[in-house]
């Protein structure tokens, strides 16, 4: 039996299908948009098609993310925190013990601390303000007139970064605009932005305590600039998986696998 994990985030919806053995059979991503239900539905159809499977092949569907309750076909809803911890532990199993998981999503950031057994010991999330998250980067990219994907590469080229004082989207925007007006180097501004995001993440990490191995996932982890800024500030290596956006969806699928086992046992 196959299991599916679907992560309905604020910006993107991600889905993963796992085989009983634990291989990733198929995965896909789409923008969530205004209707999370539609997005999820469409995405599942799409990845099933890609894998050449039918709906009946899915033994268990776990939904997570902020829209987890909006779909009706799921068997279970789990919070993204548990999923993220699970996914990170599974993906990072070859790195040794993952003890700290950073997730930089579209509208939130969270830091999860795991104990020796891989259980969640503690977690923190940003409060209701979405400053310094993916949405923030998106807006800044707009202001600077560069692609979101290019931010990382650009910032690595920076020679001396410019400190950005604010992570509040509104205030940072005006700050960046004034820096552009002053004719400052774009790369340096971007590096400054990354540094301020990293600072915000580190503030969260401090609340749970930094422990190696540090695992960095979520859409924001695709940005190499933030990874570098984090490593510089922490003085520790920060591991980013090859496809950081799918960590939560994989985690959800793994939870689905466990639940399926439990269900089969009961039957």
């Amino acid at each position: 039996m196959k299991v599916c994990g679907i992560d309905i985030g604020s910006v993107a919806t991600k889905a993963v299908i796992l085989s009983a053995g634990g291989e990733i059979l198929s995965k896909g991503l789409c923008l969530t948009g205004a209707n999370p239900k539609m997005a999820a539905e469409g995405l599942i159809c799409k990845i099933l098609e890609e894998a050449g499977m039918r709906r009946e092949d899915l033994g268990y569907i776990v939904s997570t993310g902020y829209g987890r309750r909006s779909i009706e076909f799921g068997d279970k809803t789990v919070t993204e925190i548990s999923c993220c911890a699970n996914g990170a532990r599974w993906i990072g199993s070859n790195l040794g013990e993952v003890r700290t998981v950073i997730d930089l999503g579209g509208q939130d950031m969270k830091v999860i601390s795991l104990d020796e057994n891989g259980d969640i010991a503690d977690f923190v999330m940003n409060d209701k303000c979405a400053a310094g998250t993916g949405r923030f980067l998106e807006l800044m990219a707009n202001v600077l007139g560069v692609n979101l994907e290019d931010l990382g590469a650009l910032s690595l080229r920076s020679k001396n970064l410019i400190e950005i004082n604010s992570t509040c989207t509104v205030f940072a925007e005006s700050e960046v605009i004034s820096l552009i007006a002053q004719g400052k180097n774009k790369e340096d501004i971007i590096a400054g932005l990354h540094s301020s995001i990293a600072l915000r993440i580190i503030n969260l990490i401090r609340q749970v305590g930094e422990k190696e191995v540090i695992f960095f996932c979520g859409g924001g982890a695709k940005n190499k600039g933030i990874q570098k800024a984090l490593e510089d500030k922490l003085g520790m290596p920060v591991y980013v998986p090859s496809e950081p956006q799918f960590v939560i969806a994989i985690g959800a699928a793994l939870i689905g696998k466990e639940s399926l086992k439990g269900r089969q046992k009961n039957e």
Partner: protein
Amino acid sequence: MMKIERRYKRPALKREKEKVEELFKKATVKNLQLMRDVPSRCPGISYYEEIISQETREKELKEFSGKIVGSFCIFTPEELIYASGAIPVRLCAGFYDTISIAEGVLPRDICPLVKSSFGFKIAGCSFSELCDVAVVPTPCDPKKKMAEILSDYLPVWVLKISHDKDLFYSKELWLREIKIFKEKLENLTGNKITRKRLKEAIQLLHKRQAVFRRFHQIKRNNPQLINGRDTQLIIQSSFYDDIERWTETTEKLCEELKQRRINNDDQRVKLLLTGAPLIWPNFKLFNIIEQMEATVVTDELCSGTRHLYDPVEVDEWSEEGMLRAIANRYLLPSTCPCFIESDDRIDKLLQISQDFKVDGIIHHSLRLCQLYDMELNKVASVLKDKGIPFLSIHTDYSLEDVEQIKTRVEAFLEMIKSRKGKK
């Protein structure tokens, strides 16, 4: 007593009475509705629902011929108020929509509790309108300064609290404060607080407190009998209710609870709620928690258990002896973060979590309640070291962050369950 007259006075604002009343009613109805959507709810709650809705009680108080004393904290010695023949009414509020009204007078970045309570006075509705005087103890800065601003609206008495209760003269200072308070009450009501009256008042409150402890024990032995929200409702209705009637009703409720049988296994996660006060109708956090597979078995809130838990223990029934006992009861066992050390509070949290066998602790930090926030770090690290799952929720009276809090609480419950499962 000599008193310098205020030279600079601002005209008191009066606005939006009807609107606030309507919104309050709406919030109350909404909350009550949420609380009713519970399977096997404890019977006999409707009485408290009526009291907390305030309308009935307001009518009763309007007809009351004596004085009504509004209070702002659990530091206000209710015994003395009863002994003087007046009725105490707690004015602390947890209502979101009065905040914007209060912001006409108060700054934005202060505790929402103060703003909310103050907003009622500006709107000129609820109990604050019925009060002849407001008693403002000064545990924290917003309350202290609010006393001045509030005095534009009605007479205000300040009760100064010494912030180090271990200091040898703190007790003396507080006792003096209590004595002055007594004198003021005598002047206000025209009744002398005699030894006999004081003794009767102490016994009256002791009765209420004894009944509450009985209730507390029943809930401890079987938390299923009544859920956390209803418990809060019962406690908070005692803020305004006629004390004898409340005691009687709660006594009956205890009997009913003892008879009550619930057969299903309790799988719900037992949580302890601590931190800043959650006052009606700000039951957001309770609702979020109890809509999931969790229950608030007990609390360590000044709007909750702490209001009724500690008894006045009199050693000598002389006037001085009784006053000293009253002073001690309000000062010494208090775990308010306004005192410079938080060890007592941590001890209390550990004790409650052992006693009620709780699975985890949720700390409610009211945004801009700095005292609780500053204590949070120490409290959290000690409790986590002891292996108690701990989650802190930063929020205020608005409803905009319900979804975020839900995610956090749900993740917290998942964490507790997975830990429990491994054991």
